[in-house]
């Protein structure tokens, strides 16, 4: 590890800790303050924090890796990730905030008036969080392995990266709560965006032409490294050799449809992202926040796609440099996730790589922070405060939430330590993005249908909701397990559906909710809940109070 690498990571760690301590001094040990930052997060700060939450290792390292490995087929990861916020804006953001809950399970429990719904949602939420945490931990391990190359206390470099990120983020969340995590996430997203803009500026200042780079990358058949061998990527559409600029390198028709549906549906069911909407001041603010997110995330992904394309060309041109030769076979990267890190070094030597690595850690840390906080809220508030000890004091859910952070982060780290990335890379060329897709599949199958129907169909009942959540989760988990155990081909056909199952599992979940609700003699939504969820009284009151405060301040 060079002194510069150490410095960049140390500076990043010190800033994150300072922000958390500062937030801790402003946080009271109450549910609304610890889990919701007092519901006073501004639109742009919240948009930055949502982007920080959402743009994980899968986005920062994974999108560039997917584009590097699969050309235009890899671009669909970025498109799907960005597209996921459009349904959130259209159907979810404002009503979700207006009901005024603490977590996604809490929202569903209030909407359906049932603790059974709460419990079913907590199970689904914890599954999603765990499956989302593992790829972040894998990303930490891979980044540490490349950047530092050495382990601590007898651990391998990969294991050290996992342990360091797990300990650091658990500390940040336990100390800072939602306020500290929000500030950290907003700052970290600003850093991520600045880094991709900086890399793009370095490229352009060196005379880079995006269209010519795509032309150059598409001139020869697309190649990949499997083991130590270089192989030509097969075109899944017509069977010939795939090229960078044309579809077919990664997906057949079913594979592409399954991926898109999974990513588009998954976002509205991601607990760590949806929980952020409860921190907005009003429903209108939640909606405005989502518009900002679509703009910011779109800008980030468009640049990440360009950087992945540029890396394809630059690595091939400069593969004979000794440091790069160790990472490549015949000018092709062994691990596509290294694409952005390598680009940083190609453009700005070792400092460039150190800065990109710090940004990669920021991406992982901010997402892990959001996930741990969501796990903390669903356990502390939904399980302890609402089900196990409803009469407990206000500090009890916070203490339980902090304990949940430790348990969940430890579980994710253990799973990540067992995963052997080198074994999986042959089947999944951009591993982190692929693993995150599994979390999207779970969220989109188990939670999105019940959220959408709960908000917009007043006749949906609690029994219907429980049946829908469990059916969606069971089908998605079952499909993923069958797909992984049988080594299904993720690119097309039945294998693609098994490994991105929301295409089938979400309709099954939705249909289950409708059928069971129709057969259920129980009541649908109450007038009070419907009015609060779709009314604007609270928004108007917030705006009125804000106007009064402004007048009083003059």
């Amino acid at each position, binding site marked *: 590890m060079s002194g510069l690498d150490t410095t960049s990571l140390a500076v990043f760690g010190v800033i994150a800790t300072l922000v958390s301590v500062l937030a801790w001094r402003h946080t009271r040990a109450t549910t609304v303050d610890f889990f919701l930052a007092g519901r006073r997060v501004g639109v742009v700060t919240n948009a930055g924090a949502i982007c920080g939450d959402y743009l994980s290792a899968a986005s920062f390292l994974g999108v560039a890796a997917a584009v590097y490995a699969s050309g*235009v087929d890899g*671009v*669909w990861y970025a498109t799907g990730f*960005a*597209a996921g916020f*459009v349904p959130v*804006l*259209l*159907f979810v953001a*404002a009503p979700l905030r207006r009901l005024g809950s603490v977590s996604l399970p809490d929202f569903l429990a209030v909407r359906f008036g049932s603790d059974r719904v709460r419990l079913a949602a907590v199970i689904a939420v914890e599954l999603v969080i765990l499956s989302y945490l593992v790829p972040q931990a894998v990303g930490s391990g891979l980044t540490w392995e490349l950047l530092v190359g050495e382990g601590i206390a007898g651990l391998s470099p990969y294991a050290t990266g996992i342990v360091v990120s797990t300990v650091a983020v658990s500390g940040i969340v336990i100390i800072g709560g939602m306020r500290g995590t929000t500030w950290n996430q907003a700052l970290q997203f600003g850093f991520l965006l600045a880094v991709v803009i900086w890399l793009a500026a370095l490229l352009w200042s060196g005379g880079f032409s*995006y*269209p*010519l*780079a*795509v*032309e*150059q*990358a598409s*001139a020869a058949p697309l190649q990949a490294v499997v083991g130590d061998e270089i192989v030509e990527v097969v075109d899944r*559409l017509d069977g010939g050799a795939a090229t960078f*600029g*044309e*579809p077919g390198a990664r997906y057949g*028709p079913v594979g592409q*449809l399954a991926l*898109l549906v999974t990513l*588009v549906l998954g976002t509205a069911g991601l607990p760590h992202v949806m929980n952020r909407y409860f921190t907005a001041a009003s429903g*209108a603010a939640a*909606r*405005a926040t*989502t*518009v900002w997110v*679509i*703009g910011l995330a*779109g*800008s980030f992904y*468009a640049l990440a*796609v*360009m950087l992945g*394309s540029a890396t394809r060309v630059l690595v091939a041109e400069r593969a004979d440099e000794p440091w790069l030769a160790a990472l490549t076979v015949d000018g092709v990267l062994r691990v596509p996730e290294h694409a952005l890190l390598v680009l940083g070094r190609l453009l700005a030597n070792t400092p460039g790589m150190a800065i990109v690595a710090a940004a990669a850690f920021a991406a992982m840390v901010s997402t892990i922070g959001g996930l741990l906080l969501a796990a903390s809220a669903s356990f502390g508030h939904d399980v302890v405060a609402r089900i196990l000890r409803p009469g407990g004091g206000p500090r009890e859910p916070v203490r339980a939430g902090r304990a949940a952070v430790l348990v969940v982060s430890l579980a994710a780290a253990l799973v990540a330590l067992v995963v052997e990335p080198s074994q999986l890379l042959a089947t999944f060329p951009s591993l982190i993005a692929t693993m995150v897709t599994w979390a999207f599949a779970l969220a989109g199958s188990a939670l999105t249908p019940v959220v959408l129907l709960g908000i917009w169909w*007043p*006749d949906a009942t609690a029994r219907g909701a429980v049946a829908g959540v469990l059916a969606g989760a069971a089908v998605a988990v079952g499909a993923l397990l069958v797909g992984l155990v049988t080594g299904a081909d993720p690119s097309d056909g039945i294998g693609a559906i098994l490994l991105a199952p929301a295409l089938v599992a979400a309709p099954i979940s939705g249909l289950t909710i409708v059928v069971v609700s129709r057969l259920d003699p129980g*009541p*649908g*939504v*109450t*007038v*009070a809940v*419907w*009015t*609060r969820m*779709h*009314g*604007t*009284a*609270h*928004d*108007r*009151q917030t705006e*009125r109070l804000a106007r009064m405060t402004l007048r009083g301040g003059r």
Partner: protein
Amino acid sequence: MPRPESGSRNHDRLDEFDAPAEVAAAARTQRRIALGYASLFALGIFVAPVLSMTLPWWSGARLTGGMSPGFVVAAGGLYAFFLGLGIAAASLARSVEVRMLGTSDEEDARR
């Protein structure tokens, strides 16, 4: 579902409140609008991969350098489409809320 009764009110804190019948009507309108925009969104996002499989020009033609129409749309055009659609949908949803909800407060104040 117990349908909202016209005239009954859900009092919120301070003096802001919504009439359930107004909220039910506004929610139906918002649902129609959201579904309309969602259809447009689905058309935008799914037409690109369909074109890449059915229309050779979509992937084979070159607009600039090595970029085909399909590449340009996937790598940049769709993000602009999402943002434009989002701004339009948010503006319309907001104006529907302003037009359909909260009017009872003003009427009460005038009385």
